[in-house]
């Protein structure tokens, strides 16, 4: 037997070299994959901050050729659409999640869960077409309502699955303890289970809201866009993502710069939500353990 300290053969060197090369490649690959993240941050901040001012949040877009102006109408529109989508999608999603976790079992529950996963995978533009057909056309025009319904449909399955996951972590004997007290099942579910997991369920809800706040495709032909303040929820309504899209593909440099500022605002919003939720959630975990 060769002694452990005997010289390495050529083959051993080759294997060692390959080892270091591959590990180097993996590390390099990971950093290359993250390069776009930093690049996006850099450009969104660098190009976006110029126009970031109070007027950006409060005023209408400036006419072509004029600098200044803002996306006040788009921001307000986004708030309206997201708000209504939340009102519709969150109760629906939570109810579906509760049903899956508390009432549904066996084959039918597997089927329902599968359908919800499929719904999550439906391209959002397809949902736009669907809402155009069943809401926009019958209502006679583009509206904030239509956009909100489209976003609610995207939100519902996300929240349903996260709610279900959270409730599934409650051990069965809490349900039994509640029932054994002579409390109706629905009260056990709402006031003991859901209330006990409220923080975690809301985390899922907020992440769902963050997710839909950047959605563009389903709004293109539901709420459309509007260069002015929308008079009512039945009017075409501007939204931040659609406005970013419209401006970025426009030929005017002023508008393109406005698109960067819009992107900055959108990213800050989405990331703030993510960060707050994450720290809240990890705090909650820490205090549990």
């Amino acid at each position, binding site marked *: 037997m060769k002694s452990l300290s005997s010289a390495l053969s050529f083959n051993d060197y080759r294997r060692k070299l390959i080892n270091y090369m591959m*590990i180097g490649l993996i590390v390099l690959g*990971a950093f290359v994959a993250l390069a776009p993240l930093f690049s996006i941050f850099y450009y969104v901040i660098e190009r976006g901050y110029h126009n970031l001012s109070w007027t950006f949040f409060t005023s209408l877009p400036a006419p072509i050729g004029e600098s200044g102006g803002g996306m006040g109408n788009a921001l307000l529109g986004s708030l309206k659409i997201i708000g209504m989508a939340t009102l519709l999608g969150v109760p629906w999603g939570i109810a579906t999640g509760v049903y899956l976790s508390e009432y549904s079992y066996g084959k039918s529950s597997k089927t329902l869960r599968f359908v919800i996963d499929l719904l999550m995978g439906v391209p959002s533009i397809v949902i736009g077409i669907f809402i155009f057909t069943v809401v926009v056309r019958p209502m006679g025009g583009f509206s904030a309502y239509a956009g909100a319904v489209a976003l609610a449909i995207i939100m519902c399955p996300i929240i349903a699955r996260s709610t279900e996951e959270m409730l599934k972590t409650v051990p069965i004997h809490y349900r039994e303890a509640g029932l054994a007290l002579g409390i109706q099942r629905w009260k056990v579910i709402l006031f003991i289970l859901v209330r006990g997991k409220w923080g975690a369920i809301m985390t899922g809800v907020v992440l769902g809201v963050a997710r839909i706040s950047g959605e563009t495709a389903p709004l293109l032909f539901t709420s459309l866009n509007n260069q002015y303040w929308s008079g009512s929820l039945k009017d075409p309504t501007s939204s931040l993502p659609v406005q970013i899209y419209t401006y970025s593909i426009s030929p005017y440099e002023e508008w393109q710069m406005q698109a960067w500022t819009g992107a900055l605002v959108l990213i800050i919003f989405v990331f703030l939500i993510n960060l707050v939720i994450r720290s809240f959630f990890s705090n909650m975990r820490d205090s549990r353990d």
Partner: protein
Amino acid sequence: MKKKDKDFSDKIFYWILKILGYGTMVLLAALVVVLLKVSFPIFEKFGLKFFILNDWNPVTRVFGALPFIYGTVVTSLLAIVIAVPVSIGIALFVTEIANSKIKKILSFLVEMLAAIPSVVYGLWGLFVLVPWLRNSVEPFLGKYLGFIPLFYGAPYGVGVLAAGIILAIMIVPTVSSICREIFYSVPNLFREGALALGATHWEMMKLAVVKSSVSGIFGASILGLGRALGETMAVTMVIGNRPQISPSLFSPAQTLASLIANEYNEASNSSHLAALTAMGLVLLMVSLAVNTFAKIIQKRFQMRTGVGK
């Protein structure tokens, strides 16, 4: 025991939840039915020729889906080809190489990548990625590899390559996070076994971790493919929107989703609208099929190994 009027509140609550829960099922069915109904005239007129016709002219009312199907498939495949190795690398880095601090930071950054809205990717793609491809990457590739049809032609910047790269960036979080879960679920016994045989770190990762997860990785790739096929905004902004079939990665193209985004609002007549809806239906059915397929693979993987999510 007091006998009072029976309490129906539990029944009412149950039925409300049941109706809302099964509402999702009704919704999915409605999606298919409504799209089928609106696009029916197109299938009536063109039949299966709709899928193989390489012509798109709303004015003469000739509608063929081939160039868009081609564009969708090519950009998505390109995205998979780029994203899967990178995702495996990230997952290996997180599970097998990094210490817990780097692991945390890296996972966080990858999740941030997932949180960036599609339209922001598009904006960045259009004004940062595309000029870079046009001025540096594509001329370079064309100069040295131009004899391969893939890299032939004028460097437009916008086109299949740009769309593929953007899509790859967007699906890396999905694919890598599934790969990560799969690698975590590989029993340590496998790793120790490989190391005990004298394998190097890389050989251990290759033999014990990646080889035992092949079908799981395949499932993750299929899920990534599903996301890439339907992605709209970012692709629309960088693909050049020209319905053509060209072997070159540099040439502009168009996908099903980008076509819908571009033309739906300006549909000139009802058959144009029907044709666009038919594109949406194709997209819907493909996404349902791909996601179902991914689920089946995932399930098989779980059943065989008894691990995984």
